[in-house]
């Protein structure tokens, strides 16, 4: 008898072996029901709504970089049919105007990019064009950021948190991004 009671005392522990199974069940539930949200995208600030249209004729034509995207997803940059791959370089040349040409912008602060599309334009193409224009500015900001003593190879876009706010404001003040979007024409829908 004495021998048996000793055995009982050993078995008195709560069996924790099934705990793992329960936890596994919960784990699998969460794995199945949830998705790791990839939330990335192009952040834009829309202009506030106003009834009156902006009159583009008030601006000098040399300061306006007009980009038209039609319903066939073709690109017309300053009245020239252009490939989307050349857009970034052309935009950069226009904004900085390193050779001081007569037909490009007077200075970066006066440069305006005007984007217009048809209602039939594919969203894909529109976003690609927007991406290229933003890319042009990002590259210019990068180049500008390198002149500041923040570190030899500071990339404006990737390490913008490491650049002090005042410097960032100065860079954006030198090369402001002005992108105006006109009401689209109703072709192609």
């Amino acid at each position, binding site marked *: 008898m004495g021998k048996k009671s000793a055995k009982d005392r050993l078995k008195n522990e709560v069996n924790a072996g099934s705990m793992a199974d329960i936890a596994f069940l919960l784990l699998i539930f969460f794995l199945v029901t949830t998705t*790791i949200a990839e*939330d990335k995208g192009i952040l834009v600030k829309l202009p506030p709504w106003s009834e009156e249209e902006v009159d583009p004729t008030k601006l000098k034509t040399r300061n306006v970089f007009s980009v038209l995207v039609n319903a066939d997803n073709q690109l017309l940059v300053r009245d020239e049919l252009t490939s989307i791959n050349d857009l970034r370089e052309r935009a950069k040349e226009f904004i900085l105007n390193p050779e001081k040409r007569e037909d490009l912008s007077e200075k970066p602060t006066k440069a305006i990019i005007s984007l217009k599309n048809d209602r039939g334009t594919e969203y894909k193409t529109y976003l*690609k064009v927007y991406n290229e224009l933003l890319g042009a500015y990002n590259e210019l900001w990068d180049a500008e950021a390198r002149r500041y003593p923040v570190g030899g190879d500071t990339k404006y876009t990737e390490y913008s948190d490491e650049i002090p706010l005042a410097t960032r404001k100065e860079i954006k003040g030198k090369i402001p991004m002005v992108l105006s979007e006109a009401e689209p024409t109703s072709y192609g829908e």
Partner: protein
Amino acid sequence: MSKFQKKRGKASPEVSTASLPDIIFMLLFFFMVVTVMRNSELKVKVVTPGATELSKLEEKSLVNYLYIGKPMEKYHETYGTTPRLQLGDKFATVADIPIFLEKHKVKVPENKRTRITSSLRVDGEVTMGIVQDVKTQLRKSGQLRVNYSSKKEREDK
């Protein structure tokens, strides 16, 4: 010699599994923290296009989602195949946007309301017409921070 034999006879060969639940719980908590429940079932097909100049969205609670795309196949009979707008978990029209934004806004603390962002999850194949209507409605409602949701695309492409 006999000393060793004695010891081997006594020691139990089982590995203790008592710490296994703790390990599993750790994994569980990791996944619980990292993942976010998808609150709305997608009724439209959305394949966002790729882009290179991306920025991250900061706080999840400050973001509301607007989906635009063709209705999924099972809704073709009732809703057709023209691109539609989805707000929350149901089909909507552009006129429903102000109410949708207001409903989201009341859940956000007042000091954070200026940072509310609208994430436009638009299918690449959709034409700009409906996107433009949505954008115009957002502007009219004063919701000016907009994020065009897109995937990361490699630079050299």
